[in-house]
């Protein structure tokens, strides 16, 4: 499926209709989902109705903007009224949301068409999409490999052409990592830029919703619509939302900081080559390269697994079998209801995170773990502040490696956690960051590069990313899509 901007143009010129796009999307899902397992729920009837409304608007000469009639998919931890929201967990199997996330309301008001809900690691805890209770999602570029996680469904849906636009969520890199592994553009906005009302909470000081698209313009158009203050989310930023634009192919006057610590030991040579190539292209476009340092970034993963797990252990206390979701049968009292429903309903990774978090917050360990993690988090934020004195944006890998084989990191939780070492610092500091397709391995697996900008400077981030995108070329199309592509 073509990028959002092209489709919007074709819709505006009357060359295609929204219903046609939805039928294309549904056909592509029917064709490819048996191979990839991206969707947990497809809302064919709802999508066709919304597309009809969009086409009727256009027939009257009205439009709701650049996303009017554009199909999109939603990670299954973001709720939409009347649709299931499982978070890829048994504990929410069968749960149908009685309300819309603010994101969904805004997209509906903008005419976008929700096609369905896509797979994720259970409760967004994971880096490979292998931790879904309903089966893993495969990478469209190489089906023996993971799409990355936890928004693997969102990124695989866009990469395989099932939808031109999707939304995921991030706590430690869960949009950028799969975007890199799948060869699409994934944005994590600043903490508080997009309302989280209707996003199932994981790590509340870190969580943020982000768009995924084929191009920078797609995520810019989406962010322009979904960003902004929401009375229902007290952490949303009050700053006004500009109309986000992509760059004009010049980076004259821009300072691009190459993060020293993230290009050294442990970085796959082909990933390092992509970052160096991106840096060269920045320079050719007129940017000045500067060497920057994030000396405390090396503590990011450790801080993250204390902070996010501590917050998760509190947030997931609400899943208790009493009010909604799974209830264990045959229990004698309330205590057993809680314990048995949770133990039977949660998967291994979720239990592991709850255990880490509960341990870190438990009596006698709080200062040693949570207290120290908060010290280190302050130092990481200060690192970014210093780096952004020297540079307008920061450039680095998204992940030390390209996509790995299914099963490779499942027996080693720590190795899986270290997959996120380069994305986590932005979540801890709250700054916006983006994964941009920058090349591929010799075997054809996509590689993304990461750009990061100061807090609430998505305008700068998208401007630079848009310019660089033109120089790097689009991400490669997956073979199985190219074969069947019109």
């Amino acid at each position, binding site marked *: 499926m073509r990028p959002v901007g092209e489709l919007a143009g074709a819709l505006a010129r009357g060359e295609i209709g929204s219903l046609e796009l939805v039928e294309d999307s549904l056909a592509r899902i029917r064709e490819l989902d048996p191979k990839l397992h991206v969707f947990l729920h497809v809302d064919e009837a709802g999508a066709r109705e919304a597309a009809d409304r969009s086409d009727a608007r256009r027939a009257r000469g009205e439009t709701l903007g650049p996303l009017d009639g554009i199909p999109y998919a939603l990670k299954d931890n973001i709720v939409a009224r009347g649709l299931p929201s499982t978070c890829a967990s048994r504990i929410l199997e069968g*749960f*149908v949301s*009685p*309300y819309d996330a603010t994101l969904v309301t805004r997209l509906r008001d903008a005419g976008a068409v929700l096609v369905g809900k896509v797979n994720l690691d259970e409760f967004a805890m994971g880096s490979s999409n292998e931790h879904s209770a309903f089966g893993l999602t495969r990478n469209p570029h190489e089906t023996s490999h993971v799409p990355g996680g936890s928004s693997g469904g969102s990124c695989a849906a866009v990469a395989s052409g099932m939808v031109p636009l999707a939304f995921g969520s991030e706590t430690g890199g869960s949009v950028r990592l799969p975007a890199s592994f799948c060869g699409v553009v994934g944005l994590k906005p600043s*903490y*508080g830029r997009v309302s989280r009302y209707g996003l199932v909470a994981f790590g509340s*000081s870190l969580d943020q919703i982000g768009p995924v698209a084929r191009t920078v313009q797609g995520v810019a158009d989406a962010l322009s619509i979904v960003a902004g203050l929401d009375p229902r989310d*007290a*952490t949303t*930023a*009050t700053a006004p939302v500009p109309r986000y634009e992509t760059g004009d192919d010049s980076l004259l006057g821009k300072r691009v900081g190459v993060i020293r610590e993230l290009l050294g030991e442990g970085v796959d040579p082909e990933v390092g080559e992509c970052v160096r190539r991106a840096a060269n292209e920045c320079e050719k476009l007129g940017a000045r390269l500067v060497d920057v340092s994030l000396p*405390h970034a*090396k*503590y990011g993963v*450790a801080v993250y*697994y*204390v902070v996010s797990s501590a917050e998760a252990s509190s947030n997931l206390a609400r899943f208790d*079998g*009493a*009010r*909604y*979701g799974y*209830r264990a049968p*045959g*229990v*004698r*009292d*309330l*205590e*057993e*209801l*809680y*314990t*048995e429903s*949770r*133990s039977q309903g*949660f998967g291994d990774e979720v*239990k*592991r995170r*709850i*255990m*880490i978090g*509960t*341990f870190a917050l*438990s009596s006698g360990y709080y200062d040693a*773990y949570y*207290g*120290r*993690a*908060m*010290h*280190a*988090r*302050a*130092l990481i*934020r200060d690192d970014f502040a210093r780096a952004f004195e020297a540079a307008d944006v920061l450039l680095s890998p998204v992940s030390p490696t390209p996509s790995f084989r299914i099963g490779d990191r499942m027996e080693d*939780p*720590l190795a899986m*956690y270290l997959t996120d070492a380069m994305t986590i610092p932005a979540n801890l500091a*709250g700054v916006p960051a983006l994964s941009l397709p920058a090349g591929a391995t010799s075997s054809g697996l996509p590689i993304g590069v990461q750009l990061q900008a100061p807090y609430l400077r998505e305008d700068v981030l998208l401007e630079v990313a848009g310019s660089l995108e033109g120089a790097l070329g689009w991400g490669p199309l997956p073979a199985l899509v190219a074969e069947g592509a019109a």
Partner: protein
Amino acid sequence: MVTREQVRHVARLAKLSLAPEEVERLAGQLGEILDYIALLDEVESDTGEELTHVAVPERPLRADEPGACLPRPEILALAPRADDETMHVPPVLDGGGA
């Protein structure tokens, strides 16, 4: 190093019941993860600042005006057991059966 007894204690706090093989596995895995997290022991902070949250905006409280909330029947319909007015759970004290 995390002992099996520690794992069982934390599981009780977290309202999880673990099979013996889960206790065994988690003792090993949590030990490895906590060993890694011990990397934070070397962090030195001059300011002593503890950052719990970034960039939460200062915002005046909204007016305390009642608004529409979700309809009760829809919420009760989500409960595993409910009647027209309340959700049902087993007795808080043991011995009631569910």
